[in-house]
């Protein structure tokens, strides 16, 4: 297919599938349990921009000098242009085909996560783009198409425009970079997880290479990354495996799929779960093994997002820990 590729059949190509997408393809090839799905490649984004003449219009908007006071307006203007433009039929056909293939294999009701994957490696120069937009719990083709468009639009968010201004202040000429970025979009079966979180294969609090750090909570993992709760904090010793420290968080709320669809909601957590550690020893051991394997494979400490549903561990993302200063 020209615009859409199944994760299990694709090759990791940064320009076509973005950083996060290529990384997931790598994980699947390594035999890691990654939720199945497909990638809407940067070819789709390019065709959409070209067919709708959006590229020229955005270039024109961004060519006029702007200040921080203008970014909300400019971002809104570009967002409206995206929303008025139609996704080309050829792309919709391929997305539909891919979805039907997944639906055929899954008689039960399933929902999808839609995540952005820009064609930049995770690095601090691009942390606005590396900062993933995720749209969870999409159930229909219409919802998925809308979320794909929202991922594309996120390249021109107020934060991204402010970021470019900040770079200009520092006399780096980065003005046209937003329109040069390409966005792939990952559509995956969503893991409606009971437990989720992040795993760093070094202890990022003190940079100890012989320790791992885990943040974990009940429900979907976005409450950990967006700081809407205080997750549990667990420090493991790496060699040999040992649980060194468990600090129970304040898990008053948890994120769950909205029963009405197309979003997630925060609900109160059961009182008996708020002060209970969200991971048991055997789950910690599984995470430890995942961390050891991925760190060895990528030959660098990893920042891993994971989820557990019905005792099965899923890997949602693995990327290098960007802040480490290692003498390699």
């Amino acid at each position, binding site marked *: 297919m020209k615009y859409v590729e199944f994760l299990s059949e694709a090759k990791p190509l940064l320009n076509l599938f973005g950083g996060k997408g290529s990384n997931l393809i790598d994980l699947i090839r390594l035999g890691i349990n990654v939720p199945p799905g497909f990638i809407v490649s940067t070819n789709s984004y390019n065709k959409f921009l070209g067919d709708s003449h959006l590229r020229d219009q955005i270039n024109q908007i961004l060519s006029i000098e702007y200040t*921080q*006071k203008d*970014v*909300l307006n400019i971002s809104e203007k570009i967002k409206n242009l995206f929303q008025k433009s139609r996704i080309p039929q050829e792309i919709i056909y391929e997305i539909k085909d891919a979805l039907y293939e997944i639906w055929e294999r899954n008689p039960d009701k399933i929902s999808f996560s839609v995540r952005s994957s820009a064609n930049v490696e995770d690095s*601090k120069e691009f*942390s*606005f783009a590396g*900062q993933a937009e995720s749209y969870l719990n999409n159930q229909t083709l219409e919802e998925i198409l809308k979320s794909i468009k929202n991922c594309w639009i996120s390249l021109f968010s*107020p*934060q991204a425009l*402010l*970021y470019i*201004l*900040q770079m200009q202040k*520092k006399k780096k000429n980065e003005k046209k970079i937003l329109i040069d970025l390409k966005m792939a979009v990952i559509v995956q079966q969503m893991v409606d997880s009971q437990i989720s*979180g*992040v795993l*760093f294969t070094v202890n*990022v*609090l*003190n940079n100890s290479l012989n320790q791992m*750090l885990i*943040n974990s909570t009940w429900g979907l993992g976005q409450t*950990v*990354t*967006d*700081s*809407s*709760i*205080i*997750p549990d*904090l667990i420090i493991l010793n790496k060699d040999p495996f040992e649980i060194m420290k468990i600090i129970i*968080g*304040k898990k008053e709320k948890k994120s769950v799929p909205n029963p009405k669809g197309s979003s997630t909601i925060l609900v109160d957590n059961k009182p008996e779960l708020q002060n209970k550690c969200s991971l048991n020893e055997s789950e910690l051991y599984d995470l430890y093994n995942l961390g050891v394997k991925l760190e060895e494979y990528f030959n660098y400490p990893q*920042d891993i997002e994971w989820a557990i549903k019905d005792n099965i561990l899923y890997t949602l993302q693995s990327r290098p820990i*960007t*802040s480490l200063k290692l003498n390699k």
Partner: protein
Amino acid sequence: MNKIGEGLSCSSKSEVDGELVYIKTIEDVINLFDSASGKICIVDDAGITTLSPILSELVGTICTTGSAGSHLAIVSREFGIPCIMGIKLSIEDIASLNGKRVKITHDGKDNGILYLIK
């Protein structure tokens, strides 16, 4: 100097002081855009990724929730500035701290401590 809070020290262990700015919305970030230099920002819920554009100007970040794996902690580490997550404040009204001079120190273990400079 009065101790007003303690939480998880998630990034650089350097001692810093500066004016505290309470950030709630992207509009607050826009208003701070030209004067962010040397400030310490405190946020108290989700949506704080908006701090990223001014992070290179700040000397510290603080959040009343979250932990080492939160996005704010990750980007603060990338910029090498001290970051206290899940801070427990002894002062309930965060807005009353807006504009006050504060200092961040570390206890040598995993905790970051926030002081109000009198």
